[in-house]
């Protein structure tokens, strides 16, 4: 790994994994418990449709290489997903044993198998015979990698443009190290690189290279730029030292670049998974008191129940119905944050919206404020291309095709805000869909 690679073994608590790996003994016992259902609900519930019974059966026959192939075939970032997927909402939530017993620990088994493949650095796939077609992928996160892997296997020549020094997107830079160590993500990147995919790093499309130029130079393009930084709260005091963008903080922590201290007390604004990740990172950085303030209630928060429970176990406090009014400071540093209490009113669509209660101001003295209220869109660079977007979300049809026939999109950049959270596994699946559509598109153009 290069010198600029994300590292971080200085801070051990940051790398103490949330879940310990399953032992061989446990893996075999658990695998033998699998019923090997036909038309299995776990496979249907997985957005990438990993053949779960097949990969588990291969554990029982000690064909771990074959097992890893089944997983990674369906999901090019299957090693990361084994750790970050909300399995209780997906495969494990669908397990038929849920009814009479305990669901199979599919995520743990998937981790066991992909760890085996990583430890031995198995090469699981090979590129297809060259088609002579060239495809550019913008963004090297899960969506881009997944598309690249599939396109390379179809035989197309693939170039990924990535603004960061490393690929992997949020898997490499955004998901906290104690849930997803960086080497897992980078192994998946190497698996894709081995297929002959060219990876151009440190290049920001729209800034260092013109988007329209790329569209003209390639046979097809995949937009997989994800989302951007955390938007501002738009309240006074955000320029103070001690106010953090959650993603910037996590990135520094994960890259081992974070030095110094966050102080004795930190407030996190928001209640999605990013907020949980920022709050638990703060805990693991040694902040004694970490509190999450959210403008709605536990019911509306988008963090998964397992994430919520994990944060509580790590010692994070939760406060509901609180609207930030201003960040207070002294000598350029944060000293506190003022909130207004909120109550629910109904908006035009009958949805509950938090409205401030007049005169309910209260101040929380604090050393740091981390904003974690979602992510901004990074699609301005598309404006001159005429590609259709809606509130910054790229519009696509069910094949992942944008309004420009040559341009496809996948991952967080097509994720329209709803009640759920964006997921790595969805990005992976969309990358596969975009790749399959491009393959069809290019084959049709040929024939």
């Amino acid at each position, binding site marked *: 790994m290069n010198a600029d690679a994300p590292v971080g073994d200085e801070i051990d608590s940051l790398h103490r994994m949330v879940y310990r790996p399953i032992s061989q003994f446990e893996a*075999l016992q658990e695998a033998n418990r699998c019923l090997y259902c036909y038309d299995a609900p776990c496979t249907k519930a997985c957005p990438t449709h990993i053949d779960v019974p097949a990969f588990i059966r291969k554990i029982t026959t000690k064909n771990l290489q*074959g097992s890893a192939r089944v997983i990674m075939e369906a999901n090019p970032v299957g090693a990361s997903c084994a750790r970050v997927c909300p399995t209780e909402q997906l495969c494990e939530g669908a397990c038929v044993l849920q009814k009479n017993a305990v669901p199979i620990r599919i995520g743990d088994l998937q981790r066991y198998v992909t760890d085996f493949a990583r430890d031995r650095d198995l090469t699981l796939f090979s590129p297809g015979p060259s088609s002579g077609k060239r495809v550019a992928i913008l963004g090297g996160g899960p969506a881009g990698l997944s598309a690249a892997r599939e396109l390379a296997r179809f035989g197309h020549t693939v170039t990924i443009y990535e603004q960061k020094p490393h690929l992997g997107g949020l898997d490499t830079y955004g998901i906290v190290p104690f849930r997803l160590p960086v080497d897992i993500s980078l192994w998946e990147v190497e698996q894709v690189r081995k297929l002959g995919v060219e990876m151009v790093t440190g290049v920001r499309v729209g800034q260092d290279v013109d988007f329209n130029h790329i569209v003209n130079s390639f046979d097809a393009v995949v937009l997989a730029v994800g989302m951007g930084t955390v938007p501002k709260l738009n309240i006074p005091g955000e320029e103070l030292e001690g106010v953090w963008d959650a993603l910037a903080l996590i990135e520094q922590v994960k890259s081992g670049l974070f030095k110094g201290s966050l102080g004795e007390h930190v407030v996190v604004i928001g209640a999605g998974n990013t907020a949980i990740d920022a709050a638990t990172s703060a805990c693991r950085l040694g902040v004694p008191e970490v509190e999450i303030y959210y403008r709605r209630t536990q019911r509306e928060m988008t963090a998964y129940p397992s994430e919520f429970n994990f944060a509580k176990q790590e010692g994070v406090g939760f406060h509901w119905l609180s609207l930030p009014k201003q960040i207070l400071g002294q000598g350029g540093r944060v000293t506190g944050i003022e909130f207004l209490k909120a109550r629910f009113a109904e908006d035009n669509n009958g949805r509950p919206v938090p409205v401030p209660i007049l005169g309910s101001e209260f101040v929380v003295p604090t050393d740091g404020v981390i904003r974690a209220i979602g992510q901004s869109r990074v699609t301005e660079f598309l404006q001159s291309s005429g590609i259709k977007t809606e509130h910054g979300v790229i519009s696509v049809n069910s094949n992942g095709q944008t309004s420009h026939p040559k341009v496809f999109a996948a991952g967080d950049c097509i994720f329209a805000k709803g009640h759920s959270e964006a997921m790595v596994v969805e990005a992976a699946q969309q990358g596969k869909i975009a790749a399959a559509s491009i393959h069809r598109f290019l084959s049709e153009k040929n024939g």
Partner: protein
Amino acid sequence: MADLSVNVAGIHSPNPFWLASAPPTNSGYQVMRAFEAGWGGAVWKTLGDPIVNVSSRFAGLNWKGSQMVGISNLELITDRPLADNLREIREVKRAFPDRALIVSLMVDPVREQWHEIVKQVQDVGVDGLELNFGCPHGMAERGMGSAVGQVPEYVQQNTEWVMEVAQVPVLVKLTPNVTDIRYTARAAVKGGANAVSMINTINSLIGVDINTWSPTPSVDIMGAHGGYSGPAVKPIALHMVSECARDPHVNVPISGIGGVSTWQDAVEYLLLGATSVQVCTAVMNHGFRIVEDMIDGLNNYLEARGIAAVTDLIGKSVPRVTDWGRLNLNYQVAARIDQEVCIQCNKCYIACEETAHQCIDQVPQANGKTMLVVDEEECVGCNLCAMVCPVEGCITMTDVSTGVASMSWQQRQAQTWTDVSL
């Protein structure tokens, strides 16, 4: 990809995995599905004079949460008209010309009847025939199946009748319900068989319902002995395959049957001399899709060892199967317990203490736990502790031979004899 193709006495198959003649190969629809799933060959459900089956037919032996460790069945040969079967066989062969399609046959032990059915089946274009001299119930009561298969002379006679008209390779499928399978195997070879397959099902009565007192499977309130198959029979079948493989008089290819569920089972069969394997119970339990891992696992196994072709496995363990009297009496192993991984379940302790040779000690530790320590001087190397240990790799049987030259019982007897005669 390693070369997985095999050739059983002229029957070519892209991989060694065949479906055994049984309910999974009852119809064209099923065999087509199996071939789509990847099976290299199939032996069609035994054809003959269509019979009437009973209901219910099977019962499973469940053991500690594992279903169908063995099953017993009362099913007979096909209950479908010959013409339907022949039409479907032709269709399947046309759709899958690269797979091995073998048809199992059973008729009365009458020369003309054999000639008649062999000709009819050959006409539709099959790759081989398998003579079912094995069905241990029902058909045997009618003088067929194992009633023929248990008597070497009948086996030879019936095989000869078939060979008089056979134009494709013929396998003789043997019954395990005999004292020494080599006699019937040799008889099949003498009769002209091109290959032998084994085993058919084993006589069994799988259980009694302790509430109703009816044997299982029950037909009305009655039961009858059935044929036993599944993982539980594999050791019996492996023994029979290896006995035939090392018998110079059974010098024909073997198709191994009995309890095959995984690629590892197949590797064992091949190492002990089988050229292909046949599967019934495992697909009845899990469906045809298990063949995907069988092919994948076998290929990965071969590639990992740099073995180019699966045929390179065939018979590799046969020279290592010998008679007891030739085993080295001076070889000695002793159990070693890896304290790092031991979970102190004490299962090895009680096994050795009460049922073996009292050579594992419970040594109290400062932390209140006990450490299990083997007295290697006393250990006879029976393997029992390693067998009861639930933790893989915890107990290893280690070679502690003293370097004394190898000496078998036979050699010792010969020496004693020499000593005495001096």
